[in-house]
């Protein structure tokens, strides 16, 4: 079978990308960039940002492959098969560029403008619609994918590229392993194992119980319980041979998980923001309450699009859940054999081994690699590290004149002096005096004391703002970690736009009937139960 389609679109997309990169680099789009406030993506002279590098690199690849596909008669084989995916990959990336650098900042600006207009009109219910509806690039990217596949249909030449989107998500998860420290993992491990054990085992038990009461076949109940309890689609597929599930039952389960997961992916971030959850709380909730790995990542990034703290917490919960797969398969095997006296015996070890998601082991490999300090010392793994040197805080020009200073300004010192009387704690008093005297945090411990003072809310709003600025000033971005974070965010963005393109109405219609009723009840109980537990017991910011 020949997969390469003779289409000019790969070449056209490549030319559009390169032209865009050139226009950004030449400064032709500066007024638009300024209006959208996306200058941070353009970079600095000598250090081009993602809005220049990505269009040039991707565009050139698309041009070369597009020309090759036109000039060479494709022969059946691996080269034809894998290169046929390039057009689709570029199609997804082009949508991702438009959403991330165009629609996201545009909605942000319009949302703020609408709120200001409402306030000017003296409306008491003035609100920022982009904020309330959580219209960031992650949500809009998935929506763009859903619209593309259901309204316009995916062009044939792009189909193979869409089938690569899950590889993007898996690569994102594996790369994420680099960014964890032993300390973070130790902090999260206990919490995630307890929460996941309760909710995974609880939802599997609940599906089996409801299934028995509603008289659905044991095979259907078994496969739905694994899907609702563990990690969605792969768990349903892994448990299918153990409970002798038919392909229609697997399809019903996948449809239910998909429909439920898509709804939750949009609802969770809105609830999380309304309840003002911190990244640890939201990550723990999404990782426990949402069914599918891709949707957990989608919700976590939708909650915190400009950082990956939430994603890191959510993925630990997600991976812990996947690690429960063997236990669930074993449970279902025993349950099924007991209920069906003549149930066909299957090789348990083989069922678990052949379907166990290997990318989880990839995550562990990358974590071990990262924890050796090969990419960055442990202190830099959170993405920023303590540095209060003058070199970092004060930028000078070639003649030695101060260009920019992050040291405490005199007028800010005056504000803090006025606020000092409000501080009663001796340690906080000393920390504040030290800051006023030295114009910066003098050590990591000093900064920690200042952060304690900030969290105590003893100072005025303005005073707290100054403390936050001084805290941020003594943290320096770790270059390799920053690059990893950017790349991971792009892999997830690519994967999530492609995921949207796989959410067809036909796949959602597969849900229907009893599986959907049981799935909805168990899914709601799991989501609400996890929310209550997280809200009551998870307070720490990891």
């Amino acid at each position, binding site marked *: 079978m020949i997969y390469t389609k003779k289409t000019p679109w790969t070449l056209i997309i490549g030319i559009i990308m390169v032209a865009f990169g050139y226009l950004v680099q030449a400064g032709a789009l500066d007024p638009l960039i300024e209006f959208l406030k996306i200058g941070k993506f353009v970079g600095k002279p000598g250090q081009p940002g993602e809005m220049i590098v990505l269009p040039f690199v991707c565009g050139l690849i698309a041009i070369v492959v597009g020309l090759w596909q036109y000039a060479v008669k494709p022969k059946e084989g691996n080269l034809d098969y894998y290169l046929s995916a390039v057009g689709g990959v570029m199609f997804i990336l082009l949508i991702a560029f438009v959403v991330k650098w165009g629609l996201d900042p545009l909605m942000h600006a319009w949302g703020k403008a609408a709120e200001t207009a409402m306030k000017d009109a003296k409306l008491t219910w003035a609100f920022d619609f982009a904020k309330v509806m959580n219209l960031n690039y992650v949500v809009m990217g998935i929506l763009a994918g859903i619209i593309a596949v259901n309204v316009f249909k995916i062009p044939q030449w792009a189909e193979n590229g869409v089938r690569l989107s*899950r*590889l993007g998500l*898996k690569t994102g998860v594996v790369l994420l392993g680099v960014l964890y420290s032993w300390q973070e993992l130790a902090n999260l491990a206990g919490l995630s194992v307890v929460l996941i054990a309760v909710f995974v085992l609880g939802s599997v038990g609940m599906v089996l119980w409801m299934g028995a009461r509603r008289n659905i076949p044991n095979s259907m109940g078994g496969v739905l319980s694994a899907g609702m309890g563990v990690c969605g689609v792969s768990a349903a597929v892994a448990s299918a041979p153990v409970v002798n599930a038919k392909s229609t039952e697997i399809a019903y389960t996948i449809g239910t998980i998909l429909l439920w997961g898509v709804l939750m992916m949009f609802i969770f971030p809105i609830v999380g923001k309304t309840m003002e959850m911190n990244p640890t709380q939201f990550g723990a909730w999404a990782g426990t309450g949402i069914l599918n790995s891709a949707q957990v990542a989608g919700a976590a990034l939708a909650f915190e699009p400009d950082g990956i703290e939430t994603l890191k917490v959510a993925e630990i919960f997600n991976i812990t859940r996947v690690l429960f797969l063997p236990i669930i398969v074993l449970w279902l095997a025993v349950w099924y054999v007991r209920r069906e006296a003549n149930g066909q015996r299957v090789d348990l070890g083989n069922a678990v081994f*052949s379907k166990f998601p*290997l990318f989880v082991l990839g995550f562990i490999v990358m974590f071990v690699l990262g924890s050796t300090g090969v*990419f960055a010392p442990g202190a830099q793994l959170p993405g920023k590290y303590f540095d209060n040197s003058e070199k970092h805080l004060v930028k000078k020009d070639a003649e030695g004149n101060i260009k920019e200073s992050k040291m405490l300004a005199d007028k800010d010192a005056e504000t803090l002096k006025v606020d000092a009387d409000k501080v009663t704690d001796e340690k906080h008093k000393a920390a504040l005096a030290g800051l006023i005297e030295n114009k910066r945090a003098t050590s990591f411990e000093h900064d920690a004391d200042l952060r304690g003072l900030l969290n105590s809310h003893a100072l005025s709003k303005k005073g707290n703002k100054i403390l936050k600025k001084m805290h941020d000033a003594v943290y320096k971005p770790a270059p390799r970690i920053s690059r990893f974070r950017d790349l991971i965010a792009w892999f997830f963005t690519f994967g999530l736009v492609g995921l949207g393109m796989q959410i067809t109405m036909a796949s959602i219609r597969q849900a229907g009937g009893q599986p959907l009723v049981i799935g909805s009840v168990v899914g709601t109980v799991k989501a609400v139960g996890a929310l209550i537990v997280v809200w009551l017991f998870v307070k720490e910011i990891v």
Partner: protein
Amino acid sequence: MKEKFDRGTALTIFRNDRLEDIAALALSLVIAFLVYTFV
């Protein structure tokens, strides 16, 4: 949709999930090497 492709499924271009996982790990290692070398 599956019958449209003679390898992989509608969800993946790879022959099976395991191969996709290995590809994700290989790609991650290549990216890690590039970040280590050039950043």
